[in-house]
């Protein structure tokens, strides 16, 4: 009965028992990678790069990599369905648009200075 439930349950999301075991190892490795990423980002923040901008870029690259690992492996995005990619794709596009276009529209003339 329990095996029946296991097969049944596992197949519900398209995984077999062996696959699930392999996934555990992957998760553990990703977890370690995330911890290393954390150490890395703290260390990198203390390095005095030539400009502040480089610190920002380095931090964002590390953060994006960690985020991609969480999304790809923990949230199973790497094997998700096309529909989900579509939804997320549009979301990222609109979020980027919001930030980018708003930044572009804040010219010196548009900022209020009260004397």
């Amino acid at each position, binding site marked *: 009965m329990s095996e029946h439930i296991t097969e049944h349950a596992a197949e*519900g999301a398209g995984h077999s028992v062996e696959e*699930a075991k392999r*996934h555990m190892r992957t998760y553990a490795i990703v977890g370690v990678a995330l911890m290393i990423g954390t150490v890395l980002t*703290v260390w990198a*923040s203390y390095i005095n790069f030539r400009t502040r901008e480089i610190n920002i870029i380095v*931090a964002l690259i590390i953060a994006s990599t960690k985020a991609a690992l969480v999304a790809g492996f923990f949230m199973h995005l790497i094997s998700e369905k096309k529909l989900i990619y579509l*939804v997320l794709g549009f979301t990222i596009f609109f979020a980027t648009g919001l930030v980018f276009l708003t930044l572009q529209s804040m010219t010196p003339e548009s900022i209020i200075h009260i004397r």
Partner: protein
Amino acid sequence: MEIPYAVRPRPDTGLYNAKMGIWLFLASEVMLFGALFSSYILLRVNADPGTWPLHLLNVRLGALNTVVLILSSVMVVFGWASLKMNDFRAYKRYQGVTLLCALTFLCIKSYEYRDKFNHYEVQLKNGTIYDGHIDRENKDTNYFAFEAARKVDSHADLMLPPAAELKLEPARIPMSKIKDRADGRGKEIENYGPWHSSYLAVYFVLTGLHALHVIGGAIVIFAIWGPLAKLWKTDPERYINRVEISGLFWHFVDLVWIFLFPVLYLL
């Protein structure tokens, strides 16, 4: 009446309903936190030079919280995988650790918040500024007492990174020496709450909203782990789906913090 595809996926989309639903919800959350991050960027980029404080937050505590959340994410996914392998006891253990991590995160956050609310900036009539931790033991209302404070000559000096050999000393300042507020509502005594500066305002709103999501996520995970666990016996597929959905939300909460930590604490 049965709703189709509540548990088994629909063949052409490959999804069961709740999975579609949670990803849509997470998309909206991306827009929510995205808007808040963009507010941060815009406020910072357009701040007058010398008005954006740095190094106000404890990097060690922030890094510790990051590690705690990453661990909780790993535990969540281990828990889900255990369920897929039909090991309910392992799932219970892993998810229990998740909940402990959530609690730890919130405790550290509360400590940080309290720390900020105990940190005061007092402006004197002669222009000097005292900045440090309030002495809560002091009951004498004629004085404002600091446990440990530093003294600077101007507001601009406060914005500079603290000197290597920072001298922090206790101080007792008579109220008569403290500057009055221009709007007549008391003295110029202000703690490091969200009203103190745009930076702290953004910090509190971003981390506060994130903390609310941690609380919400933890409550849902707890409910599924505890009171609603009997569904495992009657409908295991449905139960695993619930665990997966709550896990997806939790990973998102971790993801937001992965960006929050460097942006607020390190940059």
